[in-house]
């Protein structure tokens, strides 16, 4: 599988190696078992060159692949801390997640250009408590959709999430309603929301904004579920069918519009944004809250 060297400059994804060159290090692909060097993986946008398996990316890695260089303006980078239930052990977990991911929370929001087209953008961070949705994730997303409504921008969003943040209990659940409301007002304003579901997208994120896009794409092989496969096996004591809850299964069942390989995402998203350029000029009478 060749990387299409096309219109755009090669994305620069930092190899987090502190200056040391790991590019010749070998890794076995969990998809096909073949060995790949770190350098090959990097060159191929973290997709196995042999079997096409899409490896997980951090929010910043996705940003580097998607956005025009230097165009990203981050919003709400620092919203403080949230531990609404004073849940035992949560404060420490949050600290560890910050250290491990280098991000303040499990989603990165802002505006950026994609091949010259301006869009609001969110990228969930799987390295931060498995992309789980707490109050601040909900707050950042609600603010992003509100900002996009005001500025008449489309929203492009990449999901990766284990679902609700249990340590925030009911307030985590309420973020599903809060974000869905902001998505709905954006939608009533006649603006485009394009969701890209990546591996894995589950639980309360699937049952809210992941499934609320005007157009919904998914990466090949991504697990997209309300209840994860283990929970379903435990509940039903049934063997799950081959490919159950993978992107291809959702496409067949009618719940996503298309599967989009990583190497094609930037151009595909730019093309889809271009179909909706007119929407940005449109006036709206609805979203007047």
């Amino acid at each position, binding site marked *: 599988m060749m990387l299409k060297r096309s219109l755009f400059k090669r994305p620069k994804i930092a190899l987090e190696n502190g200056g040391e060159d790991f590019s010749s290090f070998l890794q076995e692909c969990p998809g096909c078992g073949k060995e790949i060097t770190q350098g090959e993986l990097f060159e191929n946008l973290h997709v196995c060159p042999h079997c096409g398996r899409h490896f997980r990316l951090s929010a910043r890695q996705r940003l580097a692949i998607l956005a025009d260089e230097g165009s990203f303006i981050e919003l709400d980078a620092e919203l403080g801390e949230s531990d609404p239930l004073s849940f035992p052990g949560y404060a420490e977990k949050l600290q560890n997640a910050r250290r491990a991911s280098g991000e303040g929370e499990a989603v990165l929001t802002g505006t950026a250009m994609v091949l010259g087209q301006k869009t609001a953008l969110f990228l969930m961070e799987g390295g931060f408590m498995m992309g789980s949705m707490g109050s601040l994730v909900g707050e950042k997303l609600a603010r992003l959709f509100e900002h996009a409504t005001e500025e008449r921008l489309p929203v492009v969003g990449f999901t990766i999430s284990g679902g609700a943040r249990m340590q925030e209990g009911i307030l*985590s659940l309420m973020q599903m*309603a809060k974000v869905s409301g902001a998505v709905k007002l954006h939608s009533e304003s006649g603006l485009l929301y394009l969701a890209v579901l990546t591996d894995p997208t589950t639980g309360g994120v699937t*049952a809210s904004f992941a499934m609320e896009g005007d157009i919904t794409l998914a990466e090949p092989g991504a697990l997209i579920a309300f209840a994860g496969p283990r929970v379903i096996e435990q509940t039903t004591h049934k063997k799950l069918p081959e490919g159950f809850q993978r992107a291809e299964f959702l496409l067949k069942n009618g719940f996503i519009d298309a599967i989009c390989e990583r190497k094609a995402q930037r151009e595909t998203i730019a093309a889809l944004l271009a179909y909706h350029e007119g929407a940005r000029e449109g006036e709206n009478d609805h979203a007047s809250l």
Partner: protein
Amino acid sequence: MRAYERLQAARAKGRPGALACISSLFTDFYELHGDRLFGEDAAVVGGLARLGGRAVTVIGIEKGATTDEKLLRNFGSAHPEGYRKALRLMKQAEKFRRPVVTLVDTSGAYCGIGAEERGQGSAIAQNLMEMMRLSVPVIAIVLGEGGSGGALALAVADEVWLLENAVYSVISAEGAASILYKDASKAEKAAEDLKITAQDLLSLGVIDRIVSEQGGDFALCFAGLQAALAERLSALCALPPEALLAARYAKFRMLGRPER
């Protein structure tokens, strides 16, 4: 009462469910079936009814009282078609300018192969979006268990009420214990830590009213509930739709605001 005791009370055999509540609160209930897309889900009951002189749409999640009924109603765990039926009835209510009352009693949306194939996540997500902008009053009442997304899918409302011993949680106490404490026997601690009781939820701003259970006299409890509903529906029906929708959005928007 501690959280775990309330949870036991909320799940107790003999506690009235949605159908019992409907027959106490309303008159002339006429049930409407089906989602018009796939099928009928008996875990969700809905239809037309009267509260005093007012026509309303009432939708509930029913666990079933007897063993046969429990099986018929899948123990109150709805499939996507149940949530889609609920949305169909809510849209119908909007068309005819009827307020909506929802009655929630579920351990959660069903986790099964068919439910996933037919888009459980998508069905719940659509309800959250559409309920936020449904232009007629909506009051949601959690009667027993308010189990996560499966409950929220009927509870994006102008007011959310809980019966005194009802609970509302993002995950079951047992699930939280096994995931967070790696010990399923710590459900009692998890119930406490998750803050699932009516009093906790009122303090957190998640619910608007606690309905007294009158020491277990549910006839008296429902009489009080009926009076309160009639009063609040009258007040909400008097509001212009734009004011109603702005207040509903603001209510959910302020939940989980940063502390500084």
